C-alpha cells in the first residue's frame, strides 16, 4: 500500500497484570470508515478501547498501534488526545465539584492547544450542540458526571466528541444502559460528525446501535483475537444467530 492507513492495530498483544487479554489483534481502518467491533463479554473489547487511549493499567507486550502511520505507544493519553484520538467511555467517572462548563472549556483548550477566548463565546457553541443532544441548560453548572444518570453520562460523552472533533473516535459500548430514545439521540449526535474526516471504531454488544450508526465493516473479537471480519450484512446474521456460528467456524481455539 502506498499511503498509510488512518488507524491500524498490528498484532497487538496486551496484558493486565499476569493476564494476557489481547493476543495479537490486527485491524486496519481507512480514513473516513466506520468499523464495528463486537464480541461476547470478556472478549477484550473494553481493554482494546482503553489501550488505544493509553490507559496506564495495561501493558502492551507486543505489536503496535499506528495512527496515520505513527506509533501511539509511548505517548501519554493527553498526547494521543491532542493528535485527534477520542474515547467515549463506557463508564465515565465523576469528578465532583468540577462543573461541566469548566471541564469542557479546559478539554477543548487542551486539545486545540489554544484558548477558546471568553466563556461567553465558547458556551454559545456548546449550547447549540447541547440543544441537538437534548441536554438541558442546567447541565453546564453540574459537577462532571456527578449524580448523572447513565443516559446523561453517554450524552455528555457525545457532546465532548462533537466539541473536540476528533479524527479517530472510539465508542466503547456507548449504547449500554440507554433507552430507545436516548439511543437515537446519541446515534444522531455521532452521525452529525460522520464524514470523510472522521474514522470511527464502534464497540458494542448489541446490533441495535449498528442500525443507527451503520458500519462499513464488522469485526468480532473473541478471546483476545479478531475471529471474524465482514461487511455490514454480517450485522443481521449476528442478530439472528448470535456468536455460535462463529465459534463453530473458528473451533475450539475461540473457546
Amino acid at each position, binding site marked *: 500500500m502506498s499511503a498509510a492507513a488512518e488507524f491500524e492495530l498490528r498484532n497487538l498483544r496486551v496484558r493486565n497484570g499476569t493476564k494476557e487479554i489481547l493476543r495479537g489483534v490486527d485491524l486496519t481502518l481507512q480514513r473516513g470508515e466506520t468499523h464495528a467491533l463486537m464480541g461476547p463479554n470478556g472478549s477484550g473489547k473494553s481493554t482494546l478501547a482503553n489501550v488505544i487511549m493509553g490507559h496506564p493499567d495495561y501493558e502492551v507486550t507486543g505489536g503496535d498501534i499506528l495512527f496515520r502511520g505513527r506509533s501511539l505507544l509511548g505517548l501519554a*493519553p493527553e498526547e494521543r488526545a491532542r493528535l485527534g484520538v477520542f474515547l467515549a467511555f463506557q463508564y465515565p467517572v465523576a*469528578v*465532583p465539584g468540577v462543573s461541566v462548563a469548566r471541564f469542557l472549556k479546559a*478539554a477543548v483548550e487542551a486539545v486545540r492547544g489554544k484558548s477558546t477566548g471568553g466563556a461567553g463565546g465558547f458556551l454559545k457553541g456548546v449550547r447549540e450542540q447541547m440543544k441537538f443532544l437534548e441536554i438541558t441548560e442546567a447541565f453546564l453548572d453540574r459537577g462532571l458526571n456527578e449524580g448523572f444518570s447513565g443516559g446523561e453520562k453517554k450524552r455528555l460523552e457525545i457532546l465532548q466528541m462533537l466539541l*473536540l472533533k476528533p479524527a479517530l473516535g472510539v465508542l466503547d459500548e456507548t449504547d449500554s444502559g440507554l433507552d430507545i430514545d436516548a439511543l437515537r439521540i446519541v446515534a444522531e449526535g455521532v452521525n452529525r460528525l460522520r464524514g470523510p474526516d472522521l474514522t470511527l471504531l464502534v464497540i458494542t454488544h448489541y446490533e441495535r446501535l449498528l442500525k443507527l450508526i451503520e458500519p462499513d465493516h464488522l469485526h468480532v473479537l473473541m478471546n483476545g483475537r479478531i475471529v471474524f471480519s465482514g461487511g455490514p450484512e454480517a450485522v443481521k446474521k449476528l442478530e439472528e444467530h448470535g456468536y455460535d456460528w462463529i465459534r463453530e467456524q473458528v473451533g475450539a481455539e475461540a473457546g
Partner: protein
Amino acid sequence: MAHELPGDSKLLQDYRFGFVTDIAAEAFPKGLNEVVVRLISAKKGEPGWMTDWRLAAYRHWLTLREPHWARADYPPIDYQASYYYSAPRQRPGKPGEMDPELAKTFEKLGVPLHERGGLAGFAVDAVFDSVSVSTTQRERLKKQGIIFCSMSEAIREHGDLVRQYLGSVVPPTDNFFAALNSAVFTDGSFCYIPRGVRCPIELSTYFRINALRTGQFERTLIIAEPESFVSYIEGCTAPARDENQLHAAIVELVALEGARIKYSTVQNWFAGDAEGKGGIYNFVTKRGHCRGARSHISWTQVEVGAAITWKYPSVILEGADSVGEFYSVAFTHDRMQADTGTKMIHLGPRTRSTIVSKGISAGRSANTYRGLVKILPAATGARNHTRCDSMLIGSQCSANTFPVIESRNATAITEHEATTSRISEEQLFYLRSRGLDEEAATALIVHGFCKEVLKELPMEFAVEAVKLLELKLEHSVG
C-alpha cells in the same frame, strides 16, 4: 506513577515571594525580657495602661510551657535567639513619601498601595516586619465613620475602643502564644465599623516578614457595631530562608447585634525547602465573638504556606440566633506540617455553625484537621454541620482528622461527615484522555474538591487563591 514522587525542590526557586528587601532597619537587641517589652511599648508611644497590660502578659507567659499537643514535630524554640522588633528605619508619613524600596517590595508582592491606580475596591494596611507602613483609602472610609488604621495608631488615637475590646476575645492568658503575642505584639490592623454601616470596600492587611531571625507578632482587632457589615482579607508572605521564623499572631473579631464579619485569609508564608529546611512557624490564635443576637462571623482560609501551621479560627456563639462559619482549604507539600481546624462554642439559643474543611496532602507532608463543636446547656436548638474531607496525593503523606463534639443540650442537632480519598487513576485517566496533562488534571480535581470553600472567598481574591493553589500543585505533582 509519576505523582508518587516526593515534592519538588523547584518549588523553592519558584516561591516568587522569597526575595529579601535590602533596607536599613532599626532592631532591638536579640532576646526577650521586661526591658524589651518596655522598649516596644515606649517605641510606640503607648500609654501606661498598655505597657502594664503587656508586662502582665509577659509575666504570665513566663509561667507557661510551649504546647506540643499538635501533630507537628519541631525542636524547642529558643525565644532568646529571636529579635522582637525590626522596623524600616525611615518611617513614612504618607504613602507618597514611602521609602522607594518598601514601595517596590509591595509592588512586587502585588499589593496596591497607591491611592489612585490601585484597586478601587480595596483598602490595604501593609505591615512590614514589626510595623504598619501604609494604610490606604482612609479618607474615603472616614466619611462613613469607619476607622481603619494600624494597631499602633489605634492605641494612641482610639485608646478607649482598644482598651474596651483588646484581649476581650483572646485574653493574654488564653495560651502560650497568645501570652507571648500580648507581651510583644508590634503592630497589626485595627478596624471599627459604626452602627448600621456597610463597609463599601474590602479591607485588607498584607503581612510581610523581611528581617532575619525576627518574629512577627501582629495583632488585629475588628469591631462591628450593631447591624454593620465588613469583609476583611488577609495575605502573607516571607523571604525564603534556611532558618525557621516565628509568626505568632492574634486576630480578635467582635460582632454586635445583627452585625456580620467575613474574614478571609490566603496564607502563603515560606514553607521551607523540599527537605523541610527553613520556613515560617505559623502559630496563630484567631477567634471571633458573636456577642449580639443574629450576629454572624465567617472565617474562610486558604492555607498553602508555612513550615508548620497551628491555627484554629473559632467562633463563640453567644448571641441568640448567631451564626458561625469556618471554610478551610489546607494544602501541604514536601515536609510541611499543618494542624488546623476550628472551635465552635455554642452558648446562645438557636445558634448555628457550619464547618467545611478540605485538607490536601502531597509529598511527605502531614495534614491534620482538629475541631471542637461544644454545645452548652443554654444553647437550646443549636445546630452544627461539619464536613471534613481529606485528599492524599502520592503515598508518603498523611492526613488525620480529630473532630470532637461535646453536646450538653439534648435539643441540639449535630451532623458530621468525613471522607478520605486519593486522586483516583480513573479520574486522572479520564481527564488526560481529554488532553489535560497530569498536572492540569490534578489541579482540576483538587479545584473541584475545594470548590465549596473557594466560592466563599471574595471574587478577585478567589481568582488569586485558585492561581496560587494551582501553582503549588503543579510543583508537587509529576
